[in-house]
């Protein structure tokens, strides 16, 4: 029992940054903006979160700094693609390239330093409940935030009037403009929300997941978050499911790599043999599983062309220049 709880806990920790970043991107894409800079915003959030946390000693200030930096970085993207109508794909890529470079440069002096960690929740009486106690009441604050985020985004997009407007803009910016909706203003907000989420996801990496600064520590999670949005057909609850599947894959391969085979020496043949088999695979193969899994789910989900067309926001990644 305990081992399963602790596996679930680590899965949640691995899934949380994916979930948050994907949630932000989902809102941006629902408004018709494809921001491929998630990886860049996330890594900037991670370095800012670590730096601010380390320098002030307060992980909370780290979280705030990460969100601010994420928003600022997304503003750069928004200015380029929305105000200057540049190609969204290329601009998103350059945001990622810039983010990876800038974070590496800013983080040079942080390498190897001990970071601060956001404390886990501890509610007397509840957290110590046997079994589910730690799972429900003993995780890090950002975990709870991520779940709240899913509920909030789902409500916002499908129950609120502003969310309806966002979806309308994503469906047809020309129609929205003809009706007098301020397309660019809404899109700025959507992109900034995406930036805030990516920054927060980065903070989770450097303040919870591994409280230290390692160059390129996002390790492609931003890209996986982008894939999750496609996988989830732009629906918030499916992003939640997808993030946890990927969290499980991510954790699974790490666990297998770390397992000490000798501790299973006395187990039954049925358990020992499969583990031995997996252990005999090169560690690099296990490490590549999350990336291969991403490709696999993308293929599975996009195979049905009709369904994909039905779900994809129709004006996604289309440049928009209002005629005045």
């Amino acid at each position, binding site marked *: 029992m305990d081992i399963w709880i602790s596996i679930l806990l680590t899965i949640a920790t691995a899934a949380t940054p994916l979930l948050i970043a994907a949630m932000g991107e989902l809102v941006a894409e629902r408004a018709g903006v494809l921001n491929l800079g998630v990886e860049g915003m996330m890594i900037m959030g991670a370095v800012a979160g670590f730096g601010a946390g380390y320098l002030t000693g307060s992980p909370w200030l780290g979280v705030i700094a990460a969100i601010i930096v994420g928003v600022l970085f997304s503003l750069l993207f928004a200015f380029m693609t929305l105000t200057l109508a540049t190609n969204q794909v290329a601009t998103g890529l350059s945001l990622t390239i810039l983010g990876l470079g800038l974070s590496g440069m800013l983080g040079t002096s942080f390498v190897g330093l001990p970071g601060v960690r956001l404390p886990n929740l501890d509610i007397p009486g509840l957290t110590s409940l046997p079994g589910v106690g730690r799972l429900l009441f003993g995780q890090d604050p950002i975990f709870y935030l991520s779940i709240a985020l899913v509920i909030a985004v789902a409500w916002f997009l499908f129950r609120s009037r502003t969310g309806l407007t966002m979806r*309308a803009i994503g*469906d047809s910016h020309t*129609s*929205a403009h*003809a*009706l*007098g909706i301020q397309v660019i203003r809404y899109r700025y907000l959507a992109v900034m929300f995406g930036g805030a989420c990516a920054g927060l996801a980065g903070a989770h990496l450097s303040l919870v997941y591994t409280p230290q600064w390692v160059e390129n520590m996002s390790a492609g999670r931003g890209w996986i978050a982008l894939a999750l949005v496609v996988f989830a057909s732009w629906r918030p609850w499916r992003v939640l499911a997808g993030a946890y599947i990927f969290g499980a894959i991510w954790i699974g391969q790490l666990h297998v790599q770390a397992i000490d085979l000798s501790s299973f020496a006395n187990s039954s043949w049925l358990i020992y043999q499969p583990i031995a088999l997996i252990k005999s695979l090169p560690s690099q193969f296990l490490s590549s599983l999350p990336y291969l899994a991403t490709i696999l789910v993308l293929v599975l989900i996009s195979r049905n062309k009709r369904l994909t067309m039905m779900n994809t926001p*129709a004006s996604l990644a289309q440049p928009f220049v209002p*005629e*005045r």
Partner: protein
Amino acid sequence: MSLHEGAANLLEVRGLTKIFGSLKACDSIDLGIAKGEIHALLGENGAGKSTLVKMLFGSLEPHSGEILWNGQSVRITNPGVAKKLGIGMVFQHFSLFEALTAAENIALSLDDGAPISTIAAKARALSYSYGLPLDPEALVGDLSVGERQRIEIIRCLLQTPDLIILDEPTSVLTPQEADKLFETLERLRSEGKSILYISHRLEEVKRMCDRATVLRHGKVVGHCNPREETASSLARMMVGSEVRTVERPPAEGMNKAESLLEIVNLNRRPATPFSIPLKNINLSVRAGEVVGIAGVAGNGQGEFFEAVSGEVLQQDKASVRIRGKQVGGLDITGRRLLGAAFVPEERLGHGAAPRMKLSENLLLSRHATDGKAFVGTAGMIEGKAIYSAAQRIIEVMDVRKSAPDPEAASLSGGNLQKFIVGRELDRKPSVMIVNQPTWGVDAGAAAHIRQALIELARNGSAVLVISQDLDELFEISDAIAVMHDGELSQKLPIAEATYEKIGLLMGGAEPGHAATAHATETAEVA
């Protein structure tokens, strides 16, 4: 009522001007609309009608000039302002969201923040009271063009406007649906609303409108009472000169001519969520004949064009035959090599690449058919030969342009269409299939294109014209078939076709019963 009674007018426009680059789209326009009148805004394509109404609705910003609302000067900086004032608009190219429901679409333009269910109930009630029933829960993408227009109209009416602007509303309706719309407009007038009615269809303007303002090349060329004018006097005002009529010499011995294009039991499944399946289409076009396909937009014409042109291949190879050969499995290049030529509906982005020069756009459809002349050894492009061929087409079709070899996007719609049609005619194709030959084209260019199509047929080619413009089809066709919901009626010889019959078929009367409709009518006449 004269223009100078500014105070009595609901809306008054003085000296309104809009400039795009070097083009004066609207040149100091004066216009007055009284309370409770239907005011027509007449003009050819490109005369500046749409630009003017976009300024009135706040979508475009005027360069200079003044707008008075109830005698007060106003600045309509965005559509929100226009709505607040009491101006509603029904767009020509609908401003709807396909992925949302009708009710959600309506909610987006109301600012009261009422729950969707309330809005849906209101919309339903209003739509029935005006005899324009709609289902608020339906996804717009699944609806026909006529139903979409109803949503636009109901959405506009729910804002309780004093002035309703309708931009070419009947271009997407069958004659019968148009009649229904006219009843609605007359009822609105009787309720004291003003209507600005934009059209280039003279008969309906004469029938409905109290006053008319005529635009030409961005300028007001006259105000008149359309009821006192004739269709041809209105046309003269619009075009500025005598309108060239198209001549259709009688086709000799056509019944014996061989069928160059045959469609046999053509079926196609919908390729995208919102596209129309084609059901069992049969048609043949003989040498020397122009056959028209009528139909309201979105009834499968685009899907049909793709299937016949070979942009999409058919499983059943025998379902399309060109000059007797089964070509269902041949792609567009293969069909072109058999002597077929195609002109799609969309000029920019389909028939032509917008950012490429005209000479490059010539290569677009002829790199294979004129392979030896235009493409040399090792796939090198013969620039000189292509350039001179392009110049030849430009001359024959009288294409007006600003540079020797301009980008396609820099030409006006009419001139680009003349080039695209000319590009195919230049090959002297034996089968020519054209979708919307003169959509959005000025009268002069339209006449030129129509005449050229008739001449091609009379010289022994088979010509198939898909169009939503019934006047056009009656002008050039030897026979007309009607497409509705992916099905095609039998073709009616032009001598037997009437607007009424074709209109009924467009509205979905049983395709097989075209003959019945005909019989009933003859009986009534008798």
